[in-house]
């Protein structure tokens, strides 16, 4: 079974720095910058659960599956 990989992006222009994605991502993919806005720091850890997409009140986050490697 190949390991699924995901591209996670945050639209910084509309992020309101609420901290929800940082608190609820089970894989700690996000950190914050000097304005407390979300930064995607460890996308390789993303499992594609989409919790961040569902809970971001401002629809800033998109999670897209990028590739599937044959040998994992």
């Amino acid at each position, binding site marked *: 079974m190949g390991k699924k990989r995901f591209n996670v992006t945050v639209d910084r222009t509309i992020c309101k720095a*609420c901290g929800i994605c*940082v608190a609820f991502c089970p894989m700690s993919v996000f950190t914050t910058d000097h304005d407390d806005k979300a930064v995607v720091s460890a996308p390789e850890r993303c499992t594609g659960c989409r919790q961040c997409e*569902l809970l971001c*009140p401002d*629809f800033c986050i*998109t999670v897209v599956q990028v590739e599937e490697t044959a040998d994992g």
Partner: protein
Amino acid sequence: MGELHEKYLRMNKMPHIWCAGCGNGIIMGAFITAIDRLGYDKDEVAAVSGIGCSGRITGYLDFNTIHTTHGRALAFATGIKLTKPRLKVFVFMGDGDAVAIGGNHLIHACRRNLDMTAVIFNNHIYGMTGGQFSPTTFKNKSATTAPYGTTDPDFDIAQLCIGAGATYVARGTSYHARLLTDLIVKGAEHPGFSVIEVITHCPVNFGRRNNFESPAQMLLWQKEHGVAARKAKAMPLEDMEGKFTIGELYRSTEIPEYLEEYGRVIQAANEEKQP
């Protein structure tokens, strides 16, 4: 933002006005996901809202929308459904809107059982006007109108609606966003008056005043206090102390839907007109 937002939201009105971390955005996301799953055409959906932060949702949704007056959304919605029965009518209200000023409209809408779906944003406070307590604020909470803590017991909106005769009643939260989408889909499909109470959070006018340090902490509270209705049935009563049930709470198909009843009146009147 993704395809769903571009399809169902008025993108020229984005970003929305709600405060950082407010639950309203999460509910709006769950709602458009439900509409997408239901497969309704945008033109056959009517969204009606009252006044409050929650009521602003109709400025953002790209359907037939009407932002009405405080507490009266259900009255407008009733008129819309009776005159245009083909429309799928959704009504958005805050806790103050639905059970304080609009409480009478709510109980009579439940009693009538007209085929509409009400989504009640219960953030336990008057958000828009600065944090006055509402009929759903828990006892001993702080509000601008209760600096020493509230003294009134709180209303259970879902139970109130079951008691008043609504035929589909569910409770979700902004934290359990996937469940919320499911509940809205089921409520919309139910032929009769459906109520989905959404336990949500106002970080600014409730949270800050009541020792919640962040919006995330308020979501965590929902996660820890919402108990699936099926699981709650098997739990001893004392374990449910301070908690609330989530999921589908009530459904009945025994009470006639109002349009059918009203249809008989239209038919009788038309027959009388014949020479």
